[in-house]
């Protein structure tokens, strides 16, 4: 059996959805986008100004057309990320504004070169099935910041990308870029390379930008990840169960807008819920309750048969220290056991404001260990041990058995060089390095080993054409990071 975590019993899942429908049908939700409101009211949803009330039947109709599974494709056209098929996958956290400078230990503003370095390292870590547009680059004008970071990831990676736009207008430009990458609009839709995170504002507010982005993505049939971000105790009920209800209601609004605009367009029941810290007013992403919220929200999505997403493995520590390790390890295990399809957040510190490539490398180990846990303990062969003993008696010569050699790689996850399992002496002679020091060395090795993928001249030209067009619009003359 595969170990599995269900935090909510079936009755509680039903109550969560019942209350979400009750809220949406009674209190309703604020939908700022006129286009989205028009779509909703044309389908019979009552409006009171910007507040729309959602008949349950309309939401159910949208749920019925939402796909149960779909894939993101790598550059070679292989389905490298699968949503809704029971595979837990991870990608680095998104949209930090700082990096932890490994040389100075300072949190400084993130720049193009930092994003490129992160992409180069993530590209070589099997723990990450997708890249993300991980950083906001301070050396790129804000007006094209979202497009430009997607461009940098596409330029340096073959993998699928979890991304997102800063404005509805730039969603359009980013779709142009993805079409250039894929070769055509049709290819972009049939074999999507990227998924867009779209976030409602808690509580139950779909901004112009967020709702319009959903409409654009639905029309382009490029996957949308609806990432609701309730803060339990501040912008959402303080009880975890209450926050899960609000999360469900916010995502259901998104699904309804999205599926009415483009029935069958791919979407994900996503989330980045957190508790609200009553001492500091922060949103601790590394809190165990935050992980519980992610698990519960995903469980509700799965009960509807939808692909799921969560935000875990980013934390609140300021350094890559014991707290950071603890936050990732708890979260990775909870995420894997909850069967969440895509988990974003690895590498991040300081409430997701800061990225550390070194942490990304260490987090990959926690993720691989959690994945190992998720595979559980299975019998191998007809006999568990008795057969081996009948052959070698009490000699203890298990290392000489061909079964040992054949099976140990499946039975044991073999950690990378950042995990120290050597002798004390070896460690002392190696300079008494801590995990962060080992991660720094590993990052340097990976950066040195990185080879940029061959995009082909035609694709490069097409990408540059879109980027130069957008760069000219904001007066950016040189292209950093390439």
């Amino acid at each position, binding site marked *: 059996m595969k170990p599995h975590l269900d935090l909510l019993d079936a009755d509680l899942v039903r109550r969560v959805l019942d209350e979400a429908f009750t809220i949406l049908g009674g209190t309703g939700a604020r939908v700022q986008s006129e286009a989205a409101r028009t779509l909703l009211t044309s389908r019979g949803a009552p409006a009171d100004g910007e507040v729309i009330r959602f008949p349950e039947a309309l939401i159910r109709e949208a749920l019925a057309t939402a796909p149960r599974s779909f894939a993101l494709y790598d550059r070679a056209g292989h389905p490298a990320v699968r949503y809704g098929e029971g595979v837990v996958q991870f990608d680095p956290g998104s949209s930090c504004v700082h990096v932890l400078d490994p040389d100075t230990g300072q949190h400084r503003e993130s720049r193009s070169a930092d994003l490129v370095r992160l992409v180069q390292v993530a590209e070589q870590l099997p723990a990450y099935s997708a890249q993300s547009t991980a950083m906001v680059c301070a050396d790129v004008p804000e007006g094209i910041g979202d497009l430009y970071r997607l461009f940098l990831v596409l330029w340096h990676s073959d993998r699928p990308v979890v991304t997102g736009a800063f404005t509805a207008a730039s969603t359009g430009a980013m779709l142009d870029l993805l079409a250039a990458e894929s070769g055509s609009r049709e290819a972009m839709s049939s074999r999507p390379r990227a998924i867009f995170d779209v976030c409602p504002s808690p509580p139950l507010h779909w901004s112009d930008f967020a709702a319009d982005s959903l409409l654009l993505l639905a029309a382009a049939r490029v996957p949308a990840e609806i990432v609701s971000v309730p803060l339990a105790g501040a912008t959402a009920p303080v009880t975890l169960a209450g926050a899960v209800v609000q999360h469900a209601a916010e995502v259901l609004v998104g699904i309804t807008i999205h599926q009415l605009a483009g029935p069958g367009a791919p979407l994900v029941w996503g989330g980045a819920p957190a508790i609200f810290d009553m001492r500091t007013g922060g949103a601790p992403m590394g809190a165990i309750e935050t992980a519980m919220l992610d698990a519960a929200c995903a469980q509700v999505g799965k009960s509807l048969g939808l692909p799921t997403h969560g935000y875990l493995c980013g934390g609140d520590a300021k350094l890559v220290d014991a707290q950071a390790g603890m936050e990732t390890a708890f979260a990775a295990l909870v995420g894997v056991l909850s069967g969440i399809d895509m988990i974003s957040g690895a590498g991040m510190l300081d409430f997701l404001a800061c990225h550390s490539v070194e942490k990304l490398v260490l987090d990959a180990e926690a993720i691989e260990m959690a994945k190992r846990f998720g595979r559980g303990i299975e019998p191998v062969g007809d006999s568990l041990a008795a057969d081996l003993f009948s052959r070698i008696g009490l000699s*203890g010569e298990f*290392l*000489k058995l*061909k079964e040992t*050699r054949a099976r*140990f790689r499946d039975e044991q996850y073999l950690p990378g060089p950042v995990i120290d399992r050597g*002798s004390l*002496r*070896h460690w002392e*002679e190696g300079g008494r390095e801590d995990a962060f020091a080992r991660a720094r060395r590993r990052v340097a090795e990976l950066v040195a080993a990185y080879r940029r993928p061959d995009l082909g001249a035609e694709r490069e030209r097409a990408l540059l054409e879109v980027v130069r067009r957008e760069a000219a619009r904001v007066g950016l003359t040189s292209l950093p990071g390439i």
Partner: protein
Amino acid sequence: MTDPLFAAMRQSVIDGDPDTVERLAQEALARGVDPLDAINLGFVPGIHFVGEQFGRGEMFLPDLVMGGEAMKIAVAILEPEMRRRGTARETLGVVVLGTVKGDIHEIGKTLVMTMLSASGFQVHDLGVDVAPERFVAKAREVNADLVGLSALLTTTMPGQRLVIEALDREGLRPRVKVMVGGAPVSHAWAETIGADGYGEDAAAAVTLARRLVGRPVA
């Protein structure tokens, strides 16, 4: 047509596949291949590869142990023919190896044996729980250059000193060099008991052994 045979021999050790090793060794005999060539050009490159990959963390203990077992099988099959031809493997030196009395831990010592054999030493493995007089007798019998002493426990470590004292008493030292290893053992301990050297792991043991016999790694 010998090259593909040698390549297959190398691979059979890398695969740690005793059946194939045996078949290839027999095939070499049947074809009249010089058994020395079969070992040095066929099987040894395989265990070298495994040792090197192990050192880099690309291969693992089961690979090393099974490769070592495969080597033993090959040598056992080819040795009678070598003796018949009056040839012998050129060795870097003769090593007597064992875990000291009172200690039954075998794995570390076996790894050192595998790596030393692979590197060209002739190794006589006395096994575990070996009394000092057995080390002395074997060292004399095979005219050993080196004696390797393994101990995994702090309580059995002093046994290494007893062997050194016995070798001293019997007048075998300083001609016979002593190297020590094992989890609790250190450079400082080696010095304290008058050993000639200490190796942290199997790879370090090879470096040390080569230095002690005056054939350091270039």
